[in-house]
């Protein structure tokens, strides 16, 4: 007899419910494998999102047994307590259908936080030399490995309480650009992250750091933004 997992999957939109499926237990199996098995063998209408399956694209994050996780790199053996899995869409985001959360608010906040590189040179200028071990570059590098999976956003208490809060990922992206010596958009960026709903709304609960699959530290990035915006405010550079 084949061993099975008892898997509850969220079905429907915001008003949906969990539905239980029996899925064969494999020796080596990720949470994404489980979802894919249900979609291919039980119900082809199950909606979910994935792309690379190797932890690079950040598209497969879901809520697994109450915690936001990247499902393609989460092994069932590590998280299936008592042979049971409950898998839902990411929290703090609208549900499109089943396990697919609507990521638009998440990425709109990247825009609000001025997460776009603002070039300071043209292609006619010489390439700027950046020391890889300089303090600013090191700080930018620490934050640059974000894969935009939304796990930190789903784990954040402040996002849950304050829908205007930009969230850990957008602020981490802003911190990366603030430390990029080639960028010319910092006054506007600091102004954006210093407004209501910006970095000062963070309570430093560190759920983002605890859950980040890339082991980044958004709380430290946000603390850096708090310091930098305060200095800019006291100098009169931002209001």
């Amino acid at each position, binding site marked *: 007899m084949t061993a099975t997992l008892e898997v509850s999957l969220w079905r429907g939109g915001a008003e949906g419910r969990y539905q239980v499926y029996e899925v064969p237990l494999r020796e080596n199996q990720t949470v994404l494998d489980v979802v894919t098995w249900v979609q291919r063998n039980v119900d082809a209408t199950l909606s979910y999102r994935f792309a690379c399956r190797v932890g690079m694209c950040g598209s497969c994050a879901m809520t697994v047994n109450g915690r936001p996780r990247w499902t393609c790199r989460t092994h069932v053996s590590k998280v299936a307590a008592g042979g049971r899995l409950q898998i839902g869409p990411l929290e703090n985001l609208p549900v499109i259908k089943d396990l697919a959360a609507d990521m638009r608010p998440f990425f709109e906040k990247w825009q609000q936080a001025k997460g776009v590189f603002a070039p300071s040179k043209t292609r006619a200028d010489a390439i700027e030399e950046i020391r890889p071990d300089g303090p600013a570059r090191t700080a930018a590098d620490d934050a640059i490995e974000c894969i935009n999976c939304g796990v930190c956003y789903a784990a954040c208490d*402040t996002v849950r*309480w*304050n829908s205007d809060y930009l969230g850990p990922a957008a602020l981490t992206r802003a911190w990366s650009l603030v430390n990029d010596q080639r960028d010319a958009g910092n006054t506007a960026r600091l102004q954006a992250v*210093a*407004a*209501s709903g*910006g970095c*000062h*709304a963070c309570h430093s609960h560190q759920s983002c750091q605890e859950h980040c699959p890339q082991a980044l530290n958004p709380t430290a990035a946000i603390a850096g933004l*708090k310091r930098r*915006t*305060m200095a*800019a*405010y*006291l100098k009169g550079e*931002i*209001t």
Partner: protein
Amino acid sequence: MNVRLYVWQRGTAALMVPLVLVHVAVIFYATRKGMSAADILGRTRGSIAWASFYGVFVVAAAIHAAIGVRNILTEWSPLDDRRAGIFAIVFGIVLLLLGLRAVTAVVLP
């Protein structure tokens, strides 16, 4: 919370750190010495130093607490930023008036 409120809240917190320490030390001193209300009032009445100390303390506490209450309201109540701000300003003014009334009661001759 925006950067302006953040600076005011952190600034008043930093200001209150030594004030709280002195305040606690004064409480210990007054109780361990067994000072009566009349003894205390004898030292505080007419004292510009105590009036300044507790006057600054009350102003800092009113600003600090009002900003904190505003934050709690924006996160935990249905009030929007503007309404929470109005409530916090009223709360801060009430705190300021009560505090200054207490200060004047012990320092005015």
